């Protein structure tokens, strides 16, 4: 985890990142001023940069600028029916941007086990933590599974939407059921059912950067409400 390449980057507490996600949600749905939106994106890009995800930050900023450009330069010259289509797309996707950026930050910098520890510190019930972490962990597996199924379908020359859907979903669910058995066996072997409080080797606590991030987030909430 603490590899040599990561020594320069700032590490945030997972709890800070989750709180930032909530803050971003609040800000995204209260702001009315355009400059706040741009400021949020700018600050988040900076945060990504500081956390060692410079390339991701640049990618998001470019897509965002592209969307804004489409909205102000392309949409006015489009026919009306296309305008309705694209305006929902641009307005909504732009609203999602802050949350998506923080989501990318969490995925890039925080392993699932850190997230679990953070949630445990918030006393989220174990019954929710286990399936939630499994869900997050299983997304990449679905992608891989999907590739195998596609290959198999090509080999058998399966045609037709209905048949294709069936041939897609059934093996996916089959393997999911199998994986569920294996994963739970593995987890039980490692003592997940042990009722005593879990200990952990990672020491999670808030540092100065966490407080700074949360402070900036609060400033944005206040600013968004004033501008509103």
């Amino acid at each position, binding site marked *: 985890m603490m590899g040599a390449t990561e020594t320069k980057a700032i590490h945030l507490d997972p709890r800070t990142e989750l709180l930032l*996600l909530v803050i*971003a*949600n609040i800000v*995204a*749905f209260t702001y*009315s001023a*355009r400059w706040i939106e741009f400021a949020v994106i700018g600050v988040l890009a900076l945060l990504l940069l500081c956390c060692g995800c410079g390339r991701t930050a640049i990618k998001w900023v470019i897509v965002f600028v592209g969307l804004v450009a489409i*909205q*102000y330069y392309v949409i006015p010259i489009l026919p*009306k029916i296309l*305008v*309705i*289509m694209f*305006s*929902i*797309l641009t*307005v*909504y*996707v732009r*609203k*999602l941007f*802050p*949350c*998506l950026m923080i*989501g990318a930050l969490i995925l890039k910098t925080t392993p699932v086990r850190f997230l679990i520890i953070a949630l445990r510190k918030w006393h989220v019930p174990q*019954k*929710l933590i*286990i*399936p*939630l*972490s*499994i*869900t*997050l962990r*299983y*997304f990449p*597996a*679905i992608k891989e599974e999907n590739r195998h199924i596609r290959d198999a379908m090509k080999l058998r020359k399966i045609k037709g939407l209905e048949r294709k*859907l*069936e041939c897609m*979903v*059934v093996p*996916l*669910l*089959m393997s*999911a*059921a199998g*994986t*569920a*058995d294996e*994963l*739970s066996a593995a*987890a*039980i072997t490692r003592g*997940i*059912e042990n009722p005593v409080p879990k200990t952990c080797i990672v020491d999670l606590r808030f540092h100065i950067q966490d407080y700074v991030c949360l402070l900036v987030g609060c400033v944005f909430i206040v600013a968004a409400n004033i501008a509103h």
Partner: protein
Amino acid sequence: MDRNLNKLQVKDLVTIGIFSAIYFVINLIVMVSGGITPLLWIFMPPILSVLCGVIYMLLVAKVQKTGAVLVMGLITGLIYVATGQFTLVLLVTFGLACIVAELIRKATGYNSFKGNLLGYAFFSLGMVGSPLPIWLFRDSFSEQMVSQGMPADYVATMNAVTPMWVLIVMVVATFLLAFVGGLIGKALLKKHFEKAGMV
């Protein structure tokens, strides 16, 4: 061990987690295509209620215990909120829909096909929360679009394609198509999973 039989074990929790992931991915695929045309987005709940019947049916067949549907709904709702989709409305509708579905499952004893079908119909209604803000916050939504540089008549056109009756049609369609989805799910279960001895 016996008194814990109706409580969710680790194996059940893992199963729920994995099925939630699949459910969410199918949601996401439909939603991304919904970005292309808003009409598809508005009618996302009915489309999903047809597609996801098999997932729900397999889940309730595998985990015949209290809470399976509720946990799946909560996780899906939480991930939606975390990715910034459409405020907390979705989490609330999902929560309510799942509680109703749980009550129906409890009343019908977890094992009855009719009960599960009805439960699924209510569970599907949870997705209505996704396009609901269009109607719920219509004024502020329109205002915002105008302030973000949309000419007012465009916003008026957008409001014109989403009158109140579209919402009602959407809700009713979701509910009815859930039965179709549930039946498809049951048929697939019979065709593939029961034969393989998995249910």
